[in-house]
């Protein structure tokens, strides 16, 4: 039985990783076709010399950071109030929060596109950031809420009774406890933003491309070693980030005495 389980795991892993492996291998292939010629770095060099990829890279980071920061602020402020709401008001605001979560990307994309054209907002960086904040904020709220619910409200009240200003009490009592939730929310927002293709596709202008849009327009013309190279770089970045955060997390867990 255990053997079958292991084989099944291996099959899944092979299917999950063979495309990625192929992608990485062929980013070092000097031929443009998928037959191996010789090892080369030339696609990586071309990548760094390609101005449209450079600008797509910067736009992706700008939109990611700005939208993550703004949606974290808006979401945190909202979550602090939602936790105090009861009854119909709370259900209404939660329903509002779930709308972007449950709508297909394509519907969010086109409806925002219609909004911007109706309001005569020119498409570009601004519309990208506005759209990303819109679909990020619900995730921020949902990652902060559980933390807030675990808080003991009496401690905050006690701080106020002892003469702390609301801002000071928030900084000293609430924020340290909910910080992990806030950071997770910001992190999710950032990754959602750099991962997004559909919403950005409808809400940008030509010349203002994110990496996703850039790859899409390149991939439509067929397989190219340049896309292989850029995908390899992104994949390695993700692996590095995840490894570092996981090593940190497991070290912290060990220090605190939790064993899984």
């Amino acid at each position: 039985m255990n053997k079958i389980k292991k084989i099944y795991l291996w099959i899944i892993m092979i299917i999950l990783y063979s495309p990625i492996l192929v992608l990485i291998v062929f980013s070092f292939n000097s031929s443009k076709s998928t037959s191996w010629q010789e090892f080369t770095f030339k696609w990586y060099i071309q990548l760094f010399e390609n101005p449209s990829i450079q600008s797509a890279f910067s736009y992706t980071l700008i939109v990611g950071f700005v939208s993550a920061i703004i949606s974290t602020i808006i979401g945190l402020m909202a979550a602090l109030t939602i936790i105090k709401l009861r009854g119909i008001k709370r259900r209404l605001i939660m329903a509002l929060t779930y709308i972007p979560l449950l709508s297909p990307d394509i519907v969010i994309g086109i409806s925002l596109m219609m909004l911007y054209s109706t309001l005569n907002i020119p498409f570009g960086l601004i519309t990208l950031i506005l759209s990303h904040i819109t679909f990020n904020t619900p995730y921020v709220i949902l990652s902060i809420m559980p933390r807030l619910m675990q808080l003991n409200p009496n401690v905050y009240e006690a701080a106020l009774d002892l003469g702390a200003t609301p801002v000071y009490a928030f900084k000293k009592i609430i924020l340290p406890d909910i910080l992990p939730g806030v950071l997770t929310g910001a992190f999710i927002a950032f990754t959602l933003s750099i991962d997004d293709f559909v919403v950005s596709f409808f809400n940008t202008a030509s010349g203002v491309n994110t990496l996703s849009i850039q790859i899409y327009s390149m991939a439509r013309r067929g397989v190219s070693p340049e896309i292989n190279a850029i995908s390899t770089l992104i994949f390695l970045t993700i692996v590095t980030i995840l490894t570092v955060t996981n090593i940190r997390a497991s070290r912290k867990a060990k220090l605190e005495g939790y064993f899984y």
Partner: protein
Amino acid sequence: MSKRKYLITPYALWSIIFVIVPLFLLIIYSFTTTKDGKTVLSLESYMKFFDPLYVEVLLRSFRLAFITTIVCLVTAYPLAMILSSKEFSNKTIILILIILPMWMNSLMRTYAWMILLENKGIINNILSFFGLPTKQFLYDEGAIIFGMIYNFFPFMVLPIYNSISKIDISLIEASHDLGANKFTTFRKVIFPLSLPGVITGLIMVFMPSLTTFMITRLLGGGQVILIGNMIEEQFTRTNNWGFGSALSMILMAIILMSIIFFSKNESLDSGGLI
């Protein structure tokens, strides 16, 4: 305390402007049509949908999304069971390995299959190396289904894994003690308790497969049209917002109905969505 209420104002305003108003625009536009450069109210966009051509597209989208969802469920469930069985020591690593491709851009995941499935791609190279006839894999429904399964598979594994690993082990032991064999225990205890995760997984796979236009475009090469591609076309090429909005409304209605259908007695919150 009373001041804290105003903290929600930015979010409330934001949601009204960027969520509610766009939805209303969608509804309004879906009831309009453009005649001689003028936008007039009409039901034409909805009527147009009943053209057999478009009904066929919708049915095809449904079929592909359905196949994708079922294949994901059937393959992900055993994996989730394996992962939650306690004899695995390095299960964190395997979990990370399954999530890892999810962190890659969905475009890259789709594109990776283009390299493999291309006419002169790896799989055909391997086939011809062994003297087997090569085949055109790309640009048909099979390629699209494959791409969708690959893209959305982790969305099925994670929620199911979450709900199985939350099952109280003593329930399973009790079932064994009371004489149930493995299969009966699965049917009567494990499966019913994992249902919230299954439902979340079904929704999270079915919805993106029904609405994707990128996977269809890249792996189908414009040969296979799904409802997502039709909507995209109305907004980027033909500029027929009325028809595009009507299609989106129909899509939203279908998704809403399937969510209600899937989660009849289950609360979405308990499914480990977050």
